[in-house]
């Protein structure tokens, strides 16, 4: 679904490339998590996948980024917006302000794409229903909690029905309850066939929800695989990514000789329990 080949980008007047020689593949209908230290180029990558770079950002761009078979840099931003939805960090900044109720806020993107009114009403109601926003439709979007605002931001992308959704640290400003809401929605969207790319630093959450993980370090993808293999990698900390607490505990146990050096490090609660049980039993 998403194919990045040897992509490089340097911002205007920047001394170095933010991304270079970057390759990324995301299969249709899966959830791909992207982790990386701050400053590793995550937001830039999100904007490239969503078609905002190079079209709204001056600088040096190379390589090809294609989504659903179309090379984004060869089309207009509107064409890119039709295939990829983009959700960013701060819920407050994503409320357009152009409309006074959640219902109209959700319809805003459809209005701008000249969707017919009857169809608009249908699609807004359907998305509000899926994302559990029906009770909020007549409220002011600014009267919502941060988590609800972020759901509105996601819903206003989903209503435009892009096959791909890119989220750039969507839960960094949310409390645990808001974070939970967002991930539940992503799981449901993925079941419905949407391809999801999520940039996130909470590895526990990614392990729980993603089909695949890619690690971004110094401007390129340095590791890709299932959450279990990528997060168990000893090099994770050298890439500036924190391991899950289970992995940390297992490493600590290994260092103290409680686990064999050859043991594959666990990432989540259940495989952690399994590893500890197995080795405890061996003792």
């Amino acid at each position, binding site marked *: 679904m998403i194919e990045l080949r040897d992509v*490089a980008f340097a911002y*205007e007047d920047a001394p*170095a*490339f933010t991304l*270079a*020689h970057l390759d990324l593949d995301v299969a249709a209908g899966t959830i791909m998590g992207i982790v990386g230290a701050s400053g590793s180029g995550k937001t830039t990558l999100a904007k490239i996948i969503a078609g905002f770079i190079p079209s709204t950002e001056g*600088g040096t*761009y190379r390589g090809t980024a294609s989504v659903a078979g179309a090379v984004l840099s060869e089309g207009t931003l509107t064409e890119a917006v039709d295939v990829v939805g983009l959700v960013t960090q701060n819920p407050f900044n994503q409320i357009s*302000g152009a409309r006074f109720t959640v219902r109209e806020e959700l319809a805003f993107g459809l209005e701008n794409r000249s969707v017919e009114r009857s169809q608009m009403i249908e699609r807004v109601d359907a998305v509000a229903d899926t994302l559990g926003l029906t009770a909020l439709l007549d409220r002011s979007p600014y009267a919502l909690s941060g988590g609800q605002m972020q759901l509105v931001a996601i819903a206003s992308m989903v209503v435009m029905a892009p096959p791909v959704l890119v989220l750039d640290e969507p839960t960094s400003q949310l409390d645990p309850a808001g974070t939970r809401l967002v991930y539940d929605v992503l799981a449901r969207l993925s079941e419905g066939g949407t391809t999801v790319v999520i940039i996130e630093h909470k590895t526990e959450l990614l392990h729980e929800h993603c089909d695949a993980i890619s690690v971004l370090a110094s401007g390129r993808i340095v590791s890709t695989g299932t959450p279990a293999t990528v997060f168990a990698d000893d090099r994770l900390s050298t890439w500036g990514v924190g391991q899950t607490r289970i992995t940390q505990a297992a490493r600590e146990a290994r260092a103290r000789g409680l686990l064999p050096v050859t043991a594959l490090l666990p990432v989540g609660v259940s495989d952690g329990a399994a590893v500890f049980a197995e080795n405890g039993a061996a003792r």
Partner: protein
Amino acid sequence: MSGSTPAVDANRTRNRIFVALGTLVIVATYLYLILAQPEELAEGGLGTSALIALAGYLIGAGLIAAGAIHRLPTATLSLIPIAIVLNIAVGQLTAVLGLPLYLDSIGTVLVGVLAGPAAGAVTGALTNVIWGLTIGPIALPFAVTAVVIGVLAGYAARWGMFRRFYLAPVAGFVTGIVAALVSAPIAAFIFGGATGAGTGAIVAAFQAWGNSLLASTTLQGLLSDPLDKTITFTIVVIILFALPSRLRGRFPFVRQYNVFGKVAPVAPAEPAAPAAPAAPAEPEAPKA
């Protein structure tokens, strides 16, 4: 979507005409009021001065704002609401602190400097609309002054007045003089010199010394506006100089006109020639 491109082109011409026409109407209104007014007042009445001041200025400001807003890219457009709210928040704060100033155009000047005269004009005009909807419609007739301030801030930035710290206050002073001249007919013919208690007292004093109504409001404006705009421009230049140049450099207008006086920007590196001296260093490909 056939024919959407020609439609955009037609709009561009139309927008240029709007801006040119708006400017013309404002200048003509001011000249008419200055030249024709003494004779009419001598006849003992206001004549059509009030109607011409109100209509001419509102139509002119409206035309400029409508023509200018179409040129603005979304990035600039999304700056404007925050600037408008900044105008209002600081304007209110100034009143609360009891300062003898307005300081209600900091956002307008900021947008003019960062995004150009057209953006400044739109910010100024729509600030007055928002004042009208939230606080009360008294300020609305002065929309033209706000447009002039935004436009002049934009041109001041374009002409390098924000490259040196000490030049910005000078630009503010000049902007204040123009603002005072432009707003004097509104204060005179629409408000009869009574735009507030303090300003009213000053107008009364000038009239008692034998000045005409228009001359008195002009002099009153010249007492307050240049000082206010000097301080406004100074605040703006202090804040912008304190910002990291990376943030200021995000605005295409700033880069295009070299607003803050850095050396001319390096030409973007050719993608095909990574070895060119101007190109940023690209890391080596992974050895695999």
